């Protein structure tokens, strides 16, 4: 989880990732950020994330992103 928080803060500095629960719904992350985060996640965690996973529910909070990583980890 710490590693994920590091990736997120490096990609989008200034967002309170630990507490934010509506990263997508509130427009804090855009499609460009998502792709950058997903590419990093795929590299660092060896998780196979596909286009079908790119829905707001999977990216609204750090917990949701972590759950997605766990699900898609090889």
């Amino acid at each position, binding site marked *: 989880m710490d590693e994920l928080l590091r990736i997120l803060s490096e990609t989008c500095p200034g967002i309170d990732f630990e507490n934010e629960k509506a990263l997508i719904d509130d427009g804090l992350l*855009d*499609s460009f950020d998502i*792709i*950058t985060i997903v590419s990093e996640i795929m*590299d660092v965690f060896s998780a196979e994330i596909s286009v079908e996973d790119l829905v707001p529910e999977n990216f609204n909070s750090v917990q949701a992103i972590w759950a997605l990583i766990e699900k898609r980890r090889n």
Partner: protein
Amino acid sequence: MSFTSPVFLGFILFFLLVYYLLPRRLQWVVLLAASCVFYISGGIRMIAYLLITTLSTYLAGRLLGWLNEKGAGLSQEDKKLLSGRLRTQKRLTVFFAAFLNFGMLYVLKYWDFTAHALGRLIPGSNLPVLNLAIPLGISFYIFQSIGYVVDVYRDKYQPEKNPFKFALFVSFFPQIIQGPISRFDQLAGQLTALREPNFDSIKYGIQLTMWGYFKKLVIAGRAGVLVDHVFNGGTKYDGSVIAFAVLFYCIQLYCDFSGGIDISRGIAGMFGIDMTINFRRPIFAVSLTDYWRRWHISLGTWMKDYVFYPLALSKPFGRLGKFTRKHIGGTVGKIFPTSLATFIIYFIIGIWHGANFRYIAFGFWNGIIITSSLILTGFYSGVRKRLGISDQSRLLRVFRILRTAFLVFIGRYITRAPRLLTALSMLGATFLNFHPERLFDGTLLTLGLDKGAIITVLAGIVAVIYVELLQERGIEIRKSLEKRSFLVQWLAILVPLTAIILLGILNQEYISAEFIYAQF
């Protein structure tokens, strides 16, 4: 049948009455009948293309739904064996549906351009020119239907079983001319729901429709006269006059397109249907990226979900990302593949507007600005820090809004001029031959509009900006009106209505029946 014709008003009134008077279970049939009448009124032959799209995407949806069910019913062992085969079958289904529909779109919209361009590149290639008429709204309904097919492929929802209900989703008349490009899960359920007449939604629908007519008939129609006059005259005008005409074109395009969408959404609202929003006050955009997120939203999100994400997450792009991170490094290495995907999207959006080099240039213009601003983000924030400017500064926001408006303004030269070279020479004239005194010496009154008409356009756009400023601050105009006195509520209806009648309907010389985006 144009949205601006009196026949259309009769058409709406008739189908609204039938819609609410007939038994509720027949309501969706009324909408389908209205959609058929509306589409056929544009020419019976054009319905063939609509039928091809409807039938092919309906069948693809059913087949994908069947394959999804087959996949879900497999045991763990069978899944290992068969999931690859199922995926290939599903992909082939999407491929055929996309190939047939985009192929049809290509032939209708881009074949002649290809033939001309090839003829110039390879003399003697002699590809035949087809001169086919482009059916009403074809790119909008194809995009909407292919979005549905991909969603079913992704197992986002079950496919529609009833072909006629599906046909209604593809052909729903308020949206077929110029969108918005709706999503099946957002729209289809609403189209077939059983509805009681709801006074509020009918009233809101009428208000939104009137606002749309005001923008289209009072502002866009007038602005268009001056724009046509100057652009038909090419570069003979002074740079300041050209810039004024481009400003009018920005006003015309915004009022024409957003007005048309307001009419569409308003009419759908009268039938109790809430269509997706397509504009979120682009005039207040703080960057070009933000602008495209606020302008023609349904096309942007379509591109994001069905082109940008698949492209950026594809294997070649993944490999490219690894390569650039390793060999280029830094911010550029990190964002290179995503920037490339962004660039490709704007290139496609450019071409979507039409088969012409100037639209390709328009795509490039947006792509270059947006990708370079992505690369320069770090540099900009460094400059702001050094100058001690806060990101929340109001002045910075105003600066960003003006900068975005300027970039959009430049882009509009490219899309409005008849040819790319003309656009460039008009741009050149604006910067090299700019004499502001021309704006005050009476030249403006020789461009097809009298003083009153020019003032109407300018006052109209000020009213639009004021309303949008209130909305930007979170005020819901129609709801807040209800809290005002009866007199204010009536004035809010009567003033725009009088303006539409006096300045729009009774001034036929300024009425243009066509919508600019209908040609895309």
